[in-house]
């Protein structure tokens, strides 16, 4: 009945889609819908296209499931079992299956897109090529990725790195409050995974309870209701499902504390709620009474952090051995690893670390003991040779030269003074000799003696404006890529090569009209003296066309 060679995971009848009644099939990679009495699949959606699913509210009369796609479109299925509860059950079944399936595909799609994005952003030249060729629709995106970019795509991406747990994942589960007193938490697959990773005890409970004793949602409801989730775990009722977990966590923390005891980098044992108030942290406010709630929440935070760190530990354990060897160098790289180290080794490392940190944070001249002893006073710069300090950076003139000059100057001053006196009475009408003025004009005009270092304006006119040069560079790059593929097709001995040749030729034609023509037009309009600039590009294209047409002519006769 179905044309797909896929497993049907779920089959639900009595479903309406766009006024037509039929059966909904949930399969491995897609969801399909077949109209009643029809043999063919009328609707089929790949999971990779689906962004999310939505269900109708429980109070609505219609029991519906809506799929939202990445391109913004939606598709609605209406479950029309006469019995409403049955319809609901059908719907929920579909929903649950999809709930498990979708994340896998979503990740796949996202990963692919992300990967491509990353490649493009890491290779600006490839990005430019992408812009020039794909966005202008000279070639299609698939062609681009398969033919032009393969050397950029990493060959085998098999070292699957598992994502770490973000420390704030609990905070990110934001409750939605809907009017009346209820609070709604939206959990997704990833968050659940995070919780499991961080709190193994909860996972244990989940395994224990979920399929058998309560449903998934009931379990999580309990979880959130429980004080376990709430920040201050003071009053845990004995009947609480998670009280055991809490106890387990407590034990874990204690264990951690023991191993970390002599590590100066983390101080878990001192639980002080110190805020930097008066005294700016210099004086400890001893009057403060320790607050049980505060204490417990700090403890809780520490424990949470430890748990989060521990999740990343598992992966690194296999590489532990070689790291042990060169610990002094590597030690600060991975703080999470420290718990596993044997105790004896640990001590030396920690001491080393301590000393290193002390080295970094302590300054001899800021040492409080030394500061306390001497009174704080602003120290003045005491110079014993003020003159030297102020003057010495200037070149000294030879003293004999200096005295000679002074002698001349002193002898001249009468004469100059008379000259200036005469000058003050006279009147000039010609302050500069015209011929000298012309000479200076020549020197200062671009091209003249004094303007040598300057870029000649007439030359700079021949230089390309930066934006044109950039554009030209891109054109060369894009066309070069296309031509490389074009010429690589010769001689076209196989049908695939022939096919590729035709496609590349079309791409060249498109490139010519979409990119090169507008460029030529702009250049002609704005920089008319540069009109020859694209001639080489055109020449390259034309030789490709000639080659293609000659091949085309010769090929024609024999297939037909």
């Amino acid at each position, binding site marked *: 009945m179905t044309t797909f060679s896929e497993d049907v995971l779920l089959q639900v009848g009595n479903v309406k889609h766009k006024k037509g009644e039929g059966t909904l099939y949930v399969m491995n990679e897609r969801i399909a819908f077949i109209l009643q009495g029809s043999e063919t699949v009328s609707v089929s959606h790949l999971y990779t296209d689906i962004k999310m699913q939505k269900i109708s509210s429980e109070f609505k009369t219609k029991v519906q499931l809506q799929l939202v796609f990445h391109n913004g479109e939606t598709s609605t299925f209406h479950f029309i079992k006469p019995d409403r509860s049955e319809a609901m059950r059908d719907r929920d079944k579909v929903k649950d299956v999809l709930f498990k399936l979708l994340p896998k595909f979503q990740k796949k799609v996202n990963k692919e897109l992300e990967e491509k994005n990353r490649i493009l952003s890491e290779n600006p030249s490839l990005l430019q090529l992408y812009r020039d060729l794909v966005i202008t629709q000279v070639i299609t995106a698939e062609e681009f990725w398969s033919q032009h970019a393969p050397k950029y795509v990493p060959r085998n991406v098999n070292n699957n790195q598992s994502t770490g747990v973000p420390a704030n994942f609990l905070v990110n589960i934001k409750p939605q409050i809907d009017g009346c007193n209820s609070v709604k938490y939206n959990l997704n697959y990833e968050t659940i995974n995070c919780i499991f990773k961080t709190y193994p005890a909860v996972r244990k409970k989940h395994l224990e309870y979920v399929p058998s004793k309560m449903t998934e949602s009931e379990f999580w409801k309990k979880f959130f209701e429980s004080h376990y989730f709430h920040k201050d775990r003071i009053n845990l009722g004995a009947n609480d499902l998670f009280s055991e977990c809490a106890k387990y966590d407590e034990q874990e923390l204690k264990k951690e504390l023991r191993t970390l005891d002599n590590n100066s980098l983390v101080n878990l044992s001192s639980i002080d709620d110190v805020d930097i108030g008066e005294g700016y942290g210099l004086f400890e406010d001893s009057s403060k009474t320790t607050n049980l709630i505060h204490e417990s929440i700090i403890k809780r935070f520490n424990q949470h952090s430890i748990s989060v760190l521990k999740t990343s530990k598992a992966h690194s354990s296999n590489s532990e051995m070689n790291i042990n060897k060169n610990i002094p160098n590597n030690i600060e790289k991975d703080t999470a690893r420290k718990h596993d180290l044997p105790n004896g080794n640990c001590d030396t490392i920690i001491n080393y670390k301590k000393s290193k940190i002390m080295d970094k944070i302590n300054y001899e001249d800021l040492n409080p003991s030394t500061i306390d002893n001497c009174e704080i006073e602003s120290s003045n710069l005491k110079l014993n040779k003020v003159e030297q300090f102020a003057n010495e950076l200037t070149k000294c003139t030879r003293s004999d030269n200096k005295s000679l000059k002074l002698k001349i100057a002193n002898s001249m001053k009468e004469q100059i003074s008379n000259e200036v006196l005469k000058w003050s009475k006279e*009147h*000039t*009408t010609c302050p500069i000799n015209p011929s000298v*003025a012309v000479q200076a*004009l020549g020197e200062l005009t*671009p091209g003249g003696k004094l303007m040598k270092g300057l870029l000649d304006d007439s030359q700079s*006119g021949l230089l390309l404006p930066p934006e044109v040069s950039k554009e030209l560079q891109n054109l060369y790059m894009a066309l070069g890529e296309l031509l490389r593929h074009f010429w690589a097709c010769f001689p076209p001995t196989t049908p695939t090569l022939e096919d590729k040749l035709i496609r590349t030729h079309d791409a060249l034609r498109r490139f010519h009209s979409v990119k090169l023509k507008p460029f030529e037009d702009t250049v002609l309009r704005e920089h008319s003296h540069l009109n020859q600039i694209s001639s080489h590009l055109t020449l390259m294209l034309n030789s490709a066309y000639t080659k293609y047409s000659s091949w085309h002519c010769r090929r024609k006769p024999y297939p037909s």
Partner: protein
Amino acid sequence: MSESSSKKSSKHDLKSKTLHCKNLHEYLKTLSSSVLDRLYIHPITCLAVYRELSEIAKHYIIRIIFVEQPVPQAVIASWLSKAYAKEHKEAVEALTELKIWKESSVTGGLPVWELNPVFKKHIRVALLGGGKNWFMSSHMEADTKPRDIAFLDAYAMERWECVLHYMVGSHQQEGISADAVRNLLHAGLMRCDNDGSAIITKEGFQFLLMDTAAQVWYFILQYLSTVEDKGLDLSLCLTFLFQLRFSILGKDYSTEGMNDGLLIFLQHLREFGLVYQRKRKAGRFYPTRLALNMAAGQNQSDVSIREGYIIIETNYRIYAYTDSNLKVALVGLFTNLIYRFPNVTVGVLTRDSIRTALRSGITADQIVGFLRMHAHPKMISVGSSILPPTIVDQIYLWEQERNRFNFSEGVLYSQFMSQNDFETLRDYAQDLGVLVWQNERKRTMVVTKSSHDDVKKFWKRHSRGNS
């Protein structure tokens, strides 16, 4: 087939003319070259003309002023980096228009610029000295009662406001001579009412809102256009005006050596407050700031003549800190005045008050310009935009409200004998792009006035061909 007989101008240009105040450059361009040549004989006019040039042009002149030979055009063009070629072109045009330099070529056909020798000689005189002295600078004894700058400012303002006062509508002809009134009438700022008394015109209203320097310059320009009818020498008067412009405030000058015509001119200037003279025959005069700032243009005037007094708030309230009736009246042109106190008047800008002003021919530009010009120093010191932008925008919006009609002059063609004729002519006009309006049913169409002749000719040819 009848002629499309009735033609009438269907729409008038009802738009109000805005008062255009030429700057010195534009004024000089209108003068004949002989007048220009005569003007360049006076160093002071050379200087005045020089100051009006664009900055680039000024530097061109400075660079070649001490050079005795013509300079190749390419050389001068290379002085400015290529990115500013437009400014170079403008500078070259201005210099050519004002006949400061002229194009010629040396042997070898190299095009060169040659500085006007008269101009060159005399601007060098202005800068360096030599030549004849000014006709108002002959030596004289020190004034026994010298006038200080504050006094001169007060005097100038009082005289000038007298003129404005007269315009605003105090009908008594007090303190203003018949000559001045004639000048106002000539300038079109006022017109004679039926009973012979002068009333202010639309242009007059606009005039009132200009800044003082521009007012003086506009007024003087109008005066100069009548000066030759009065038997005075235009170039002499201009030269004298320029000398006043470059004179020093607070210094007294001698009337000795001035001819009768100039003395009359001086008396006119005295009346408007451009110069101060204790007595008509005192033999000495003091130029005032009005004369110094004349035509200097807004951003060039050295020191503004008066303090701003208007504070305007975003709630459309206007506070005018002044006790002058004239200033209150000016603000009242476009404001709804609410309170009047000894030193401050409070008003509010409303749609009605602005529309009243707009109806009397004042433009929004002028209102905004007026407010900006007279803004209180407190408002200026606040920030870059002196007036609250919302107020400015609103005033412009109120103005645009009135411009819902576009007027264009045209000629109406009607009473076509046949639909065919009508369509032929209409299509012809449409192809030319001169069709303003048409109605097929009534067989009427309007074409632009300028193309009337073309359409008419076409029609003649068409009807002749048909008949």
